[in-house]
């Protein structure tokens, strides 16, 4: 009964280390927009984001943070998506619109 889970773990999958320094998605403030430069993390996470429509070169807007400051809410491709900050830390971005 336990083994059924083990073999579906994503742990063995390769992890992608971010190659660039700089701004991460989790550093953005509500209202700011950014372009996605690179997505790191486990392959499972990267695939998940791809199929949910968050790919490199896409524009994301940070809508807000949850009352306890985690997770964060993004607007991607016209819909609302929520990510934990620890996951958003694996996404390198380039700020394109500041919060006035």
């Amino acid at each position: 009964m336990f083994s059924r889970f083990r073999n579906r773990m994503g742990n063995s999958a390769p992890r992608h280390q971010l190659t660039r320094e700089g701004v991460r998605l989790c550093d953005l403030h509500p209202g700011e927009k950014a372009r996605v430069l690179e997505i790191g993390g486990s392959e499972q996470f990267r695939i998940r984001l791809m199929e949910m429509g968050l790919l490199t070169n896409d524009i994301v807007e940070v809508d807000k943070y949850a009352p306890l400051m985690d997770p964060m809410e993004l607007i991607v491709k016209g819909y609302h998506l929520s990510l934990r900050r620890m996951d958003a830390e694996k996404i390198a971005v380039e700020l394109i619109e500041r919060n006035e």
Partner: protein
Amino acid sequence: MSRALTVAVAGNPNCGKTTIFNALTGTRQHVGNWPGVTVERKEGRFVHNEQTYKVIDLPGTYSLSTYSVEELVARDFIVQDEPDIIVNVVDASNLERNLFLTTQLIEIGRPLVIVLNMMDMAREKGLKIDTETLGVLLGAPVVPIVGRTGEGIDVLKDKIHRIQAHTSQKARHIDIQYHRDIEVQIEKISAVLAQGESPPVNVRWVAVKLLEKDDRIWEYLDGFADKEKLRQTTTEAIEQIEKIYQDTSRAAISHARYGFVRGAMQECVRSSTAEPIDYSRKIDKVLTHRVLGLPIFALFMWLMFVLTFDLGAYPMDWIDAGISWLVNTLHALVPDSMLSSLVVDGMIGGVGAIAVFLPNIFILFFVIAILEDSGYMARMAFIMDRVMHTLGLHGKAFIPLVMGFGCNVPAIMGTRILESRRDRILTTLINPFMSCSARLPVYILVAGAFFPENAGTVIFAMYVLGVVAAIFSGKLFSKTVLRGMSKPFVLELPPYQKPKLSSLLLHTWERGQVFIRKMGTVILVGSIIVWALGYFPREVELSQNYEAQSARITQEWEAQETEIEHAFDASVALGEEQYVSAMVPFESSGHYKELVTQRDSLKQQIAANYQEALQKVDFTRQAETMSQKWIGRLGKLIEPLVAPLGFTWREGVALVTGFVAKEIVVSTYGVLFGVGSDASEENAGILTSLRNSDMTPLIGLAFLVFVLLYTPCLATMAAIRRETGSWGWTTFSVVYSLLLAWLLAFGIYKIGSALEWLT
């Protein structure tokens, strides 16, 4: 009529698949589980133009590259079971992301009908969609629909019918075109596939999947002969692509798919308003507000609790009264026999004790349906994720855990709102530690007996300890038996919607009926077993002749009564003598009236004494009888097991019966102490007996901890079995909680004894 054709309804979560499934099939549907996994499988039928269609509502998926059990189910059905028609439901108000899955379904190459659902929302957003052109670009008919109102369902049925009738449909099939660099590699792999023996049906799709490094695609290639060459070609092709794109091949392919989608949208979608109003965003400004978000959430949780348990208390009482009435009436009507006792006490009584939870369960599911359909459920997850994440759980898991304070049965069934099976199992396993309301009478009794000054504090401590045990166990499990499978939290926050009553009722009924079915199986069997334990052996040898005792008490009472009558008669005779010369008869004098009152009050008093004495004998008899029945013997048998905790066989029996339902612990004590089984919390008899027994406050505390932690009841066990779909997990849960209960109670007793604390 020809054979039934299979129609698979596929699409992203929340795009309206179930709504359309319901609109297609009406009431002709059946809910079950997919074989081997506890994922709900909904199947229904409809007839159109004399052709029967079997419709399957697949779990929602964002793509066909799968990680969760639910997505796997959907993919396996689409790929392996080869449905005759795939109906791809697409949220028209969120086209870009939804069409990503569509590109994959197109590639599979089965007959496909695309449903543009939520057209009302798209119109509201100011979107104009040219469905004709979109259909041409995607190579499949596109039907605009409003699932909520049923607008367009008949057109959909026609299209489903027509796509089947026209074989020429195949000719319209289009290929998703990738960039040249990728197309070259697809061709290379396709060539190898086509050359080999028994090539797969859809070569191009397999080639793309190989390039995507899809780990399950090799399973579909079992019959393929030249695997080695294929592997080599694939590896080389992937290397080439990754060199060009400086990214994984899967990412390159995903980019190309989204590129295709964007191209199609540019041609077919026009937006009339520049910046449409995002109403959901406005609502969220309040509901997930920095400061207000949590209080509002707490308010909703509180409302849910009050509705479920307070409102549910009324029908609960009616059911309770109804069952009692039924049991009593049947007892009065049917002569006593083993069969009548089995049916009335065992089956009706046992199942009835659990049927009282039905109102709670249905109300809870109704409230959950409102939360889900309105879109607030996703926000709850958003708000609580920070807290639940520390347990390795998804934010939504908070809801079933809190509901556990009311009753673990609906709470465990509420774990269905969680998408991942691992989260469901983890939440189910720790749920019983949330102290349910049935445990409260036990706390009140024992804490009242031993900690009359601090009863409230002790009871509160139990609730806290339960939460601590849940947190501890959650952490333990997620580090051991349920290790490391917590999925990344990538949650869609769908727009708010006004829930539709018919769909709320349907959801409630679908989930609630599962519990009803369970009452007829596991709970029935369990009730019969417990009944048998208390019923056999039929004849028990009692140490005293209780009948003779009762008879003697009756005799005494009768004698006393005669005595009173005699004394009264004598007084009356005396009075009459004194009144002989008077004008009025003695019977109307004040003195006579006084005598009558005196006699009556004396009679009343001895009658009460008599009843009490009789009851006492009866209680003692019940207590001794119970100790002689199997259940009592079981208590004595397990006494060595609980003796290290300072418990006697009485606690043993109470704990065994408490397995059926926690509140029974109190009535069992009542019976065992010979003070009656009135399970009211103020049962002073039990309180005194407990205090006068060998139990010390310390043992009482250990007992409370044990009651808090071990498996709450039979119904909970049945719910665990139901939701995990495995006896293995059920046994694990029972054994683990017993072990934890034992160890903690042991620790408290031993440490307390050593410190001579509370003894």
